[in-house]
Each structure stands twice: as structure tokens, then as C-alpha cells.
């Protein structure tokens, strides 16, 4: 596809060049002129940066690269970038700098820059972290090694296919569905403070996928719901506003073979969750809840 496009561009370029000798300035000339200027400016910039880097602090990045369509990137490789460092710099800042200054094809998801959108969970120095929430100063090693989330298919560079994660999240019927609602449209449902407190942490999930990516079971058993989805189920199963009947349905979802029972309490999900959700605790509680519930029926 676009590997061809690349070649086409080249031929077009050269043809273009040979016809338009410049008596009058054409847009193409202008463009090429500017391109030349830009190239020299870029060189200049590089030089300046190199000089700067002598006395300024820098940080080096080692970034996973892959693109199924682009020659030279079909086989995954690591690229090195050196970017200037400043206090408070996050890994995301460094990635953006590298992209905007060195290689605009460097691809990663990001949006909010403040740990709420969940798009930039990456594998940074051997651990799942949000790039925007990771201070470079807090990483102990000299180079920052950045890879896409493990256990997910890589689409390109640092972008992984999240489809399966979303499917798992949606498999637990992740929506509030009360047995009954107040008759009056303007009357709220009541919920005790304790109950809100109980579900509070579980409602913080930003769907970043870090937890599921860190779990060896989720890696091995593709059907395993995974910590994030189970936590979603917990969020609703424990919400007293929904009612007993719905809770039974919810427990039935998590106690399927590839539900809670697959969890081997590895705790890595809990460790990597950027929102500090006690995932293992929630999973364990659901296991007990399911057992208790069944004992009642025996």
C-alpha cells in the first residue's frame, strides 16, 4: 500500500524537478525552496541541540518501533533518541519531544496528559505505567526503555490493539441496571456513605489496560475476564442501589470458568494500576461472595 506510495512520490518528484526550470516561481519551487531552508534549519537545530546537550541534561530513550507497512520497520526494532531533560519531565513529554523534533512517524496514543484518559499505558523500563504519569526523574536507569503493552498485538510502534480488552470489559455487562427506580423522576436513589466508600476505588478505573497486560493468567488464557473487567463487575455487584436480583446475575457472570477462578493472586495487576485500585482484593472478595452465595443455595 503505502510503501508503493513512497516510491511514487519519488518518481513524481524527480519528474517534477526536470520540467520546472524556474523562470517564474511556481508553488512547487516555493515548496522546494522552503524544504531546503527547512532542511538547513533542521541541521542547524540538530547542531544546536548537540551543543546544548553538552552542558544541558539529556535523557536517552530506547523505543520499540514496528510498522507492518513500512520498509525497515516490518521487523520490530528499537530506535534511540536523545532529548533534553527538564525538571518535572514525564515520559510522555519525552515521547512528544522525540516525535515532534526527530521523527514524526513515531506513534503512540495519548490525549489528556493527566492520567485520566487511560490512552498511554506503556511498558516502561519493564513495568506497565502511564507515560504521562511517569516522571523521568523517578526512573532509576539512565535510558528509558519504552515498549508497547505486553500480551497485546502491536498495531504500530507503541500502539496495541485494545479490542480484546474492550470486549472483556463489555462482557461483564458494565452498566448500572437497578432492579427498580424511584417512581418520581426527580427523586434520587439513596446510597449509604459506607456503600459508596466500598465501591469508590473500583469506580476509578480508566480502562488503560495496564493491569490485564501485567497478568500472566490473562496472557495465557485469552478468555479470562482479567482484573479490569472483574473490577468493573465488582463495581456494580457491590453497589447497593442495584438490588439483590441484579447482583445474582452479576455473580453468575464472574463465576463462570474464565471469571474470578482463574485469578492466581499474582498481585501484579494491583501493583501496576495507575489509579491504585486494589484489584486483587476485589477479585478475592468476589470469589468469596460467589462461594457464600452458592452455599446459601445448597
Amino acid at each position, binding site marked *: 500500500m503505502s510503501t508503493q506510495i513512497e516510491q511514487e512520490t519519488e518518481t513524481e518528484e524527480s519528474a517534477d524537478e526536470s520540467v520546472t526550470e524556474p523562470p517564474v516561481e511556481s508553488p512547487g519551487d516555493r515548496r522546494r525552496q522552503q524544504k531546503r531552508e527547512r532542511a538547513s534549519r533542521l541541521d542547524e537545530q540538530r547542531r544546536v541541540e548537540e551543543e546544548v546537550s553538552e552542558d544541558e541534561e539529556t535523557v536517552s530513550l530506547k523505543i520499540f518501533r514496528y510498522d507492518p507497512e513500512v520498509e525497515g520497520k516490518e521487523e520490530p526494532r528499537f530506535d534511540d533518541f536523545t532529548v533534553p531533560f527538564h525538571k518535572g519531565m514525564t515520559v510522555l513529554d519525552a515521547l512528544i519531544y522525540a516525535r515532534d523534533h526527530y521523527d514524526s512517524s513515531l506513534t503512540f496514543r495519548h490525549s489528556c496528559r493527566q492520567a485520566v484518559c487511560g490512552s498511554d499505558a506503556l511498558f516502561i523500563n519493564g513495568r506497565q505505567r502511564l507515560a504521562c504519569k511517569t516522571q523521568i526523574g523517578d526512573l532509576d536507569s539512565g535510558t528509558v526503555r519504552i515498549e508497547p503493552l505486553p500480551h497485546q498485538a502491536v498495531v504500530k510502534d507503541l500502539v496495541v490493539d485494545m479490542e480484546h480488552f474492550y*470486549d472483556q470489559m463489555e462482557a461483564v455487562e458494565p452498566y448500572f441496571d437497578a432492579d427498580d427506580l424511584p417512581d418520581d423522576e426527580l427523586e434520587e436513589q439513596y446510597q449509604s456513605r459506607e456503600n459508596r466508600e466500598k465501591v469508590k476505588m473500583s469506580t476509578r478505573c480508566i480502562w488503560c489496560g495496564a493491569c490485564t497486560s501485567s497478568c500472566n493468567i490473562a496472557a495465557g488464557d485469552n*478468555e479470562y*475476564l482479567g482484573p479490569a473487567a472483574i473490577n468493573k463487575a465488582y463495581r456494580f455487584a457491590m453497589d447497593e442501589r442495584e438490588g439483590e436480583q441484579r447482583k445474582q446475575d452479576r455473580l453468575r457472570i464472574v*463465576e*463462570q470458568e474464565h471469571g474470578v*477462578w482463574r485469578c492466581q493472586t499474582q498481585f501484579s495487576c494491583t501493583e501496576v494500576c495507575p489509579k491504585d485500585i486494589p484489584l486483587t482484593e476485589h477479585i478475592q472478595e468476589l470469589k468469596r461472595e*460467589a*462461594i457464600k452465595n452458592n452455599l446459601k443455595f445448597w
Partner: protein
Amino acid sequence: MAEHYSSFERKGTRWLFQRLTAVFLIGVLAFHFMLLHFVNHAAEITLAGTTARMSQFGYFATMWLFLVTATFHGVNGVYNALINQGLKGTQKQAVKWVLVVASVLLVAQGTRVALAMTNLV
């Protein structure tokens, strides 16, 4: 997509039994080890001694339960581990039956041996 609750089979039973057998096993395994390595040195075990112990009904029952629970616990553990690695479909069914048959044979053989160790038969 993870399968929805298509069947109403509750998969928590095995999980619970795994824990319950574990609790039982803690005691028995420790006892077993103490008795046959520390109290009676392993190298000094003879059939006579064994028979003497096994002929006590309480000890016999404990050992037999040890066998059954350990078999369940161990085999179920292996089965779980395989599911955790993503075993599914016919392979899973096959493994399941192999494990079931192996367990039954083990318990049967174990029972035979145990009976042979008593002076009842």
C-alpha cells in the same frame, strides 16, 4: 469475547474444594513428614512397622483420606494450571478425562496398597 454465562454451572466448587483440601493437607502432610522422617527415620521403615501403624483404624482412615484429598488437590491443581495457560476445546476435554482416569487409577491402586499394608486382608 469472554463467554457469557451460557450455562448455569457454577465453577466455584472446584476452587472451594481446592482450598478445603489444602487446609486438610497442611496438617496431614506435616504429620506424615514428621512421622516418617523424624520420628521414624525413613531408612528404617519396614513393612512390619508400616503394617502396625496401618492397622490402627484412625491412622488408616487418615492416610486414605490423605490419598484421596491429595489426589484431588494435586490433579485439580494441574488441571487448573492448564486452563490458566489457555487450554481449551477438545484438548481440554481430553486432558480432563486423562486426569480423571489417572486419579481414579491412583486412588484405586493406593487403596489396594493401603489394604495390603493392614493385617485385615
